[in-house]
């Protein structure tokens, strides 16, 4: 009697599993998969790195360059990076078949050249970011080419002069 009941349900329902991978998987339009960074749009500002909960994104300066690296092995597919990116450079894809045979294949990189401080030569911003900022406020170029440390020193010197300390 009880067997008959479940049998009836089973016969009515039929097969529900999909023949994945031969059939497409069931994904809703809201599904969040791995992210993709568009190198032509990214400024290297690092906002995404700051917000990423598992540190799947890193931004590391080395010599004249800074590398933004995305390691999909750590990504939790939250999409927070795409939400904060000021350049809209990050896209949340539907990609979830991510297995790879080498660790390197799980990483993607955007390499940025670094602009240097016009006074001390220390690396400051990425050139791409500098271009973007200057485009939105042209007067700022000279200002942005000075690193915060030198800027502070320059300000202190100017203030001293104004207070008359420079006359000594």
């Amino acid at each position, binding site marked *: 009697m*009880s067997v008959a009941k479940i049998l009836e349900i*089973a016969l009515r329902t039929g097969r529900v599993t999909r023949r994945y991978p031969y059939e497409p998987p069931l994904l809703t339009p*809201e599904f969040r998969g791995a992210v993709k960074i568009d190198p032509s749009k990214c400024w290297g500002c690092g906002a995404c790195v700051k917000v990423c909960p598992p540190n799947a994104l890193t931004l590391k300066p080395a010599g004249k360059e800074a590398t933004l690296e995305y390691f999909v092995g750590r990504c*939790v*597919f*939250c999409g927070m990076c795409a939400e904060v990116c000021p350049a809209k450079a990050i896209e949340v894809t539907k990609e979830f078949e991510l297995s790879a045979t080498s660790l390197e294949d799980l990483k993607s990189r955007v390499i940025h050249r670094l602009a240097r401080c016009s006074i001390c030569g220390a690396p400051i911003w990425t050139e791409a970011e500098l271009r973007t900022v200057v485009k939105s406020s042209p007067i700022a170029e000279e200002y942005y080419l000075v690193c915060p440390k030198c800027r502070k020193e320059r300000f202190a010197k100017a203030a001293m002069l104004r207070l008359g300390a420079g006359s000594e």
Partner: protein
Amino acid sequence: MKSDSSLSTIVKALEEVGAFVEEVRDSEVYFRVTRENVRAAARALYSLGAYLKTCAGVDERELSGLFAVYYIFGLDDHGVDAVLRVLVPQDDPWTVSVVPDVPAADWCELEVRDLLGIDFRGRLTKRLVLPEDWPEGVYPLRKEFKYDEKPPRVLREELSEEVGIPVGPYHPALHEPEYFELYVEGERVVDVAYRGFHVHRGIEKLAESQRFTYKQVPFLAERICGICGFVHSSCYVMAVEKAAGIVVPERAEFIRSIVLEVERLHSHLLWLGVAAHLLGYDAGFMHAWRIREQVMVLAEYLTGSRKTYGINLIGGVRKDINTEKIDKVLKTITDLRKEFTELVKAMLAVPQIKSRASGTGVLTKAEARALSVVGPVARASGLYRDVRKDYPYLAYKRVSFKVPLYTEGDNLARLLVRVDEVFESIEIIKQLIDMLPGGSVVVEEYDIPSGRRAVAAIEAPRGEDVHFIITGVGRPYRWRVRAPTYQNIPALRAMLRGTPLADAPLTIASIDPCFSCTDRVTVLDVRSGRKSFIRLKQGV
């Protein structure tokens, strides 16, 4: 809910044993009590009907030069938390245990001892959460200990003497690692020893390290549990919002509540399937999971992910609900209701299901009370406890629903509680959708002052989940999490003792121990001393 007259009785009773009110916030009253008086204070609270929610050790040396132990009690009848704060000097770190009067404090005290190095007098102590090869005198929750520090391993002699190859409880490919030792006499279980915490991940420590910020912790919290992760992220954000006084938009509260109920649906359906499987009724298992699948798809459609939804932010949620989503929700729960009714009928008509579940694994009301058990386990033993009713949060104050209550305390009662709750959840979702208010779903501007405290609780599918927070600068100063299973596992001893071995798998499963945990047990025959490993799945 609050009735001030009886609250003053509580304050008076505590003042009589030397405690005084330190702070009153929303629905929390903080008492300060000396370590000599804490046991009397805990006893007073317990006899006034309070449940122990958890205790937490905090390294407050940067703030006050002292350690502190917080005992968090819930007064269900008043919807108020009474928190006892005991200060412990760092050069003489001990306090009096409350365990003789409040057995539910057993584990959390041992945890404080392990992680903070505070000794508890008047009880048996042993290592609980730290691994056996962890050195003595290194306390990970002390602030000077770095979150990524790796102290040298200490090999203990007892370790090397062990023979036998337990290819089981710790194997990463199996379900979650937990380990029960059942002592049997013939076919009867005479005692149970539990060893867990093999996967203690130090999440609380991680959240207070430089590595994390307030905004990132919800994603970490969500990963505490693979089944009820949304409960944890919601509980964390609620605790922070409460501490900082952030008012969340109503619409966000409704969305959180809807998703919480969707999570309960998938969790209960999962449990029902596994229970059927353990009883050898695999057809029932598969149909339960088939029905559950539409809930998973709904969850993905609402949040972006089948599990670890990732939509909680401090101040609200990231995903709004539109009319298409509302239609999908309504269609899913209507179908679910129909299919679930049919399945439950078919399942309960199988005579073996009823006969194996009824009368087995009994937990009496008195035992349930003494151990402060939570969720369906409590409700199946006649305790009327449900955070959604007792401490209404989010949108639950706006909906009407029943709390299923059974008095038998057996495996069948726990099964029926969950079955009833599926129907209640469906009704709750319907009402919430019906009343969904407009407006925004998140507040962006807020500020979280440091040094604030708050307790938040949510009724997870397995029972009450508690998060306690002390705010810090940029990140929590201390974040304490107590998942429901933590409170329920100790009750297994009472359920299993004196019962036939064959009922053990179902009984262990009946508390829904974050289900994964139950793959293997060691059976030790006390008469012959013979040890053997068995697979729970083989149906013993």
